[in-house]
């Protein structure tokens, strides 16, 4: 009984925001989509699904099942083993032994797959799930780094003002005056290696400027508020005022920036991979899939492009809608 009394009373702003979010049907649909992608990411990262995406299960460019196999692929699937023997081949005996082993372990390649196969016969569906893991992690972690940096700089700059603010502003102005693609290439050149971590750093270190500007403005607005003066009067330190008092009141800005940047970075990873600064060989991402797809498209193999593009478009749209709804639900002014 006492538990009920304690439970019912504290409808905090987060609870209220959640309540408002739940009223919004579009937001809830978007949230479901994003959650589904995240679940897929976790399953993929733990190896429960798509761990075997590199198995060559289909024939080269096997078309999706709903399109149906073409003559060429059927033929390719049919003649899985029989390459005619070359009587002059000195290694013929060894090759026959190897083929015997392969035939024992590998299943015959299939003529069609649910959503087709790529050049090597990888299942596109599994590849997309696996690629999503890389892309979403890059997007989210890089957005976290960028918003973290932007919030820290913005908070210091906006709260202290004066010369500190000037210094940060000069830094900001110099940073933003360099074209962003040049900036990205510069950081890539300095880091000198390919990998997921590199992409995260490139995007995170160049993406803090937007959140910085917004958070700085919020801090300038909030530092003169009476609740901050009151915190000052009771003896709270500057850091406490900045992060215990003001930050919870501006966190909606950071959160919305996080989701906007995550969307942007998922797209940016595609561009980086396209430019050759993306993920290394052997790692798949939506970006690298799109990069491969440009050649395939000329051959009329559209399914890899479609899978990666649709997956990305659905996630990005859901994420944007969610971010929009979050902004409305979290901003204390729109009550």
């Amino acid at each position, binding site marked *: 009984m006492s538990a009920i009394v304690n439970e019912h009373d504290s409808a905090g702003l987060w609870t209220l925001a959640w309540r408002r979010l739940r009223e919004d049907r579009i937001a809830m649909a978007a949230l479901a989509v994003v959650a589904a992608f995240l679940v897929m990411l976790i399953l993929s990262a733990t190896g429960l699904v798509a761990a075997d995406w590199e198995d060559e299960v289909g024939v080269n460019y096997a078309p999706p099942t709903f399109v149906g196999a073409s003559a060429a692929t059927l033929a390719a699937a049919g003649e899985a083993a029989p390459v005619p023997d070359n009587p002059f081949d000195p290694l013929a005996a060894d090759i026959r032994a190897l083929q015997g082993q392969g035939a024992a372990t590998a299943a015959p390649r299939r003529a069609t797959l649910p959503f087709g196969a790529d050049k090597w016969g990888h299942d596109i569906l599994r590849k997309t799930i696996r690629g999503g893991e890389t892309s979403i992690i890059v997007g989210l972690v890089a957005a976290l780094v960028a918003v973290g940096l932007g919030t820290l700089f913005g908070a210091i700059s906006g709260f202290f003002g004066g010369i500190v603010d000037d210094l940060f502003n000069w830094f900001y102005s110099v940073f933003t005056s360099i074209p962003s693609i040049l900036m990205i290439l510069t950081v890539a050149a300095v880091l000198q290696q390919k990998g997921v971590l590199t992409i995260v750093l490139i995007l995170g270190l160049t993406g803090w400027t937007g959140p910085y500007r917004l958070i700085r403005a919020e801090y300038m607005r909030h530092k003169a508020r*009476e*609740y901050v003066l009151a915190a000052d009067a009771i003896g709270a330190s500057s850091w406490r005022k900045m992060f215990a008092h003001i930050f919870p009141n501006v966190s909606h800005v950071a959160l919305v920036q996080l989701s906007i940047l995550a969307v942007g970075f998922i797209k940016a990873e595609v561009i980086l991979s396209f430019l050759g600064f993306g993920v290394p060989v052997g790692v798949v991402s939506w970006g690298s899939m799109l990069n491969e797809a440009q050649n395939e498209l000329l051959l009329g193999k559209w399914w890899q492009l479609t899978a990666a593009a649709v997956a990305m478009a659905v996630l990005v749209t859901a994420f944007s809608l969610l971010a929009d709804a979050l902004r409305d639900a979290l901003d204390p002014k729109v009550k």
Partner: protein
Amino acid sequence: MMAALLEVRDLRIAFRVDKRTTFEAVKGISFTVPQDATVALVGESGSGKSVSSLAIMGLLPKGTTSIDPAGSVLFDGRDVLHLPEAERRALCGRDIAMIFQEPMSSLNPVFTVGYQIGEVLRRHMGMNRREARARTLALLDEVGIPDPQAKIDAYPSQMSGGQQQRVMIAMALACEPKLLIADEPTTALDVTIQKQIMALLAALRRKRRMSVLFITHDLGLVGEIADEVIVMRHGEIRETGPVRRIFSEPQDNYTRALLHCRPPLDARPWRLPVIADYMGGQVEANPRQRERGYAPDDDIVLDVRNLKKSFWVNDGLFGKREFQAVKDVSFRLARGKTLGVVGESGSGKSTMGLTLLRLHEATAGSALFEGTDLLALSKRDYHPYKRRIQIIFQNPYASLNPRFTVGQILLEPMRLHGIGADDRERVALAQALLERVGLPPVAYHRYPHEFSGGQRQRIAIARCLTMKPEILVCDESVSALDVSVQAQVLNLLQELQDEYGLSYIFISHDLAVVKYISDQVMVMNKGEVVEIGDADELYRNPRHPYTRTLLGAIPRSPDVNVESRC
């Protein structure tokens, strides 16, 4: 009685809060505004007075409001609630005009005032540019703007608040309305300006023979201007009557309470009556009076000498100009007594309070507390003194962090200053203080937005009390509260002073409140102390002309100046 110009019948307004709940703001009110008369609609926040006036103007948001179609608002015999949109807009622009509380936000800052008034004339009266300008000049002159030829091309920011409100009135009068709705037109203004605007409204009404619906929270204010008073509470009309009868023999308990909750200027009851006393019918006939004033042997707790505070404003490319907000303020605050500080906006009274707490850096001067100059200490050395001198701000909505629970708000200062041995002891202390300031124990787990203004101010007071301060600066602490809540908070402050021997520096623009709670009063104007002295003596015999102006601006009840009204 003249014919009715506006007749409101059974007006019901409800707001949709969310999908399931609606809130009924106005519960079937009926009243009339006669021609050539002023009707005052008086009520505290949430009484539905402003909502009613917005409904008459058709300014309520359509999506969330529902007005019961059974009710009607007859203006000159036409039901405006059921008029087609275009006709209604034309009517509201020409025959009904409205002025609002905040002149600064009602005027567009990027256009000159002449342009903004002229626009109304061109649109509604079909005047050309030259005619409009001539008429604008005449209007500005009529509302008492000095040098209209120059001011017609001024931007709103180049005018004072009083002048801006005059411009708003000129704009409202531009189309010669039959009814002027004034929604708290003087609440944002200083007392002396308030008096001028009230006089202007009364004079204009008489001259133009129009009607005024005057909406205010302050019953005391309408004594000089209104013919008829309507008292509202919680969306219902409590009492209607001629102004003199309302003031002399109010019939309703709530009206009686509103009249008596304001601290009187001529008496100082031990405790101010609150609404509950009147509603319950338990009012003392002759309450015990409190004696106030300084004694020569008072123990001085704070000795402020030659306090100065300047702000530097950029002037040109490299130049800086000094703006002296506080010029040479000296006073002595006695233990367990109250120093009242009165002044209008821009007098430097709040800046002085903030400077004493070092929320602003003082430019010069000293504040001796137990022989230590608080203003000269380093930040680290000052920290232990912070708990001993505390502040309660004006706006209880802004001074509590909306993301903290009341418990967190109360625990924070105790943790910062190491008060209480452990958190269990602190929680117990916090809960005891909540009870002391009159809040229920469940308040501990709640967030500030769940409380009303008065309750939030109690939370702010409890936060200060956690540190057991010796000096409490109250910076307009009751100014944002409704009259009835104001009395409760003043009573609480009074009790706490009796109980803990607190010394108050009570900053306010409200002379009656300052008189009630102060032993000594300091009058400030433009950063300077113009007069300081014993509270009763200063109000009885003001020596400085500015003090006399201030005291003269206090609204009087209608009996006092019956002759001057017509």
